[in-house]
């Protein structure tokens, strides 16, 4: 299956033109790179490109094909996706729901809304305590609380859905 690689707004095709041992000749979009690639630690690669020594660290996610790739200061969020899927891809963008996820692991110390409440942009929703700091999480827009998936004193994980707000 033909695969495309996405990074931010970029979408490029990747093609391996040649490989000999650790040496790869690879085309990405319309540019060609000759790279010497060696895996040095779990998820850590040493790459030589025209003499330059580049270290990249790859962190896979639960979603197949999704990677966070770290260079020295930069971090790229990259998706490898089938070429077919890209055309009709309309996910998330026009969603009329606001899904409030836990921005970090922590404990719910206060729940400030209940189902059916109308909220504005900036309305406080929950207070989440993590690592000794209390963090107030507010609504990013107008709407009605359609679902609350947590309760006070719950421990939540980073990214866990807490509240659903219908616009």
């Amino acid at each position, binding site marked *: 299956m033909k695969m495309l690689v996405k990074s931010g707004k970029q979408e490029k095709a*990747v093609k391996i033109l040649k490989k000999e*041992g650790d040496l790869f000749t690879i085309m990405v*979009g319309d540019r060609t790179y000759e790279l010497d690639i*060696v*895996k040095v630690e779990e998820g850590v690669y040493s790459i030589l490109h025209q003499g330059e020594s580049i270290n990249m660290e790859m962190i*896979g996610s639960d979603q197949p094909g999704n990677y966070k790739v770290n260079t020295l200061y930069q971090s*790229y969020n990259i998706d490898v996706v089938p070429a077919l899927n890209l055309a009709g891809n309309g996910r998330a963008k026009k969603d009329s729901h606001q899904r409030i996820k836990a921005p*970090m*692991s922590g404990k719910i110390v206060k729940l400030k809304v209940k189902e059916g409440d109308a909220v504005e942009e900036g309305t406080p929703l929950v207070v989440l305590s993590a690592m000794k700091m209390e963090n107030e999480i507010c609504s990013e827009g107008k709407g009605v609380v359609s679902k609350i998936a947590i309760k006070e004193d719950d421990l939540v994980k980073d990214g866990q859905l807490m509240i659903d707000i219908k616009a």
Partner: protein
Amino acid sequence: MIKKVLVANRGEIAVRIIRSCREMGLKSVAVYSDADRSSMHVRYADEAWRLGPAPSTESYLNIDKIIQVAKESKADAIHPGYGFLSENTEFANRIREAGLIFIGPSAEAITAMGDKMTAREMMKKAGVPIVPGTDQLPESEDEIKALARKIGYPVMLKASAGGGGKGMRLVKTEKELLPSLLRARSEARNAFGNEAVYMEKYLLEPHHIEFQIMADNHGNVVHLFERECSVQRRHQKVIEETPSPFITEEIRAAMAEQAIAAAKSVNYSGAGTVEFLVDKDRNFYFLEMNTRLQVEHPITERVTGIDLVKAQIKVASGEVLAFKQEDIAQRGHAIEARIYAEDPANNFIPSPGLIRHITQPLGLGVRTDGYAYEGYEIPVYYDPLISKLIVWAPTRAEAIKRMKRALYEYKITGVKTNIPFVQRIMEAEAFVKGNYNTHFIDDNLEQLLQPETENTQYEDIAMIMAYLDFQNRQHKRMDFGQKAGNQSNWKNFGRLFRHNPY
């Protein structure tokens, strides 16, 4: 005299204290909550005893249980570290009542300095300059507003029992006053079990500069020079350095004198820190005295060569200080960066989680005090401090370059950290020139958060790597399905990533 020390703390400071115990030939007893069974201080100590469930109130703040463990483990002294019970009068008293040694000052000194309002009163009497402000705030909201108006905005709310930025709020306008007060009281109650809050004038372009004090039980009090701690975010220190690039030799001497006077006024014993605010005209005011080891003590250790934990233990054993004021010199320049598990790009929210990979910076002039290791899960219950990176060099300019080099080597994956943010601080013009005050981070936040300029080449290569890894996994998976057929194919591919030394 002291043979076995119980360390009533966790994280990097527990490990750091046990290191010095080990070097002194003392046995160490770690204590832990359920969230910390696999934490480094448990693994590193000679003994480790459970305190209770994860929340600090049931573990690291549980005085009864800690004293019970001290007795069962036959420890003869308790080191409180910083935070938790380190400035708790009851704890110090209970330890002494149990016939054990508290490695810290007298309960009276803790009480006097621990309550910030009492401390202000005492300093006023001792002739040490203090910042204009109030006593404990009254209940009446109108009265509070009136007090703030009288002092003049901006004002600072502070937990009377506070320290480490907890329970502290800067209030710029009357509108923010009451909500901030609520938050400050709540944090103060959770952190210190005491919600008393007072208010102070907020100085212009202030510097936070503190003096390290060391005193024994025989009347000797010395200072170990200052630490410049003005790089703060929400009153939480991020970078500390010594010497301060701001103060002059004359101001340094005057502040040192007042710091010693402050310590003597409470018959201080052990390690303590007298904090000052210094305004842009180099007027200095007593801020508070922390009656414990300070997070940033390593920079003082580096320029003076003195191990402060060992000195604390010796003082607690009744020994006379091993050094006189004239023996102590500041040599070269030391900088500490606090490495936090937090996400600077996302309003600095804490980032607990599993450390997937960690590479510590090493080599000349670099010290790391940490406690995390590969596979360790940073719990959500405690402080987000992962480690402290301390560098030394003969000059400030070289120390900054060394810090940048060390940060370059420091890799932590799995949780987000402020390493790139600290790297940016080291590059910021105001910091490099030593021309900064406590507003530095706020004033430069945009620049400090800016990502590197785009590098198309790196992005292309990152895309290639994702593609190769994905293909590699796909082929592996296929092979699981069809045994013989494709086997050689993916194996070959897999091997491309493995280096064979023969």
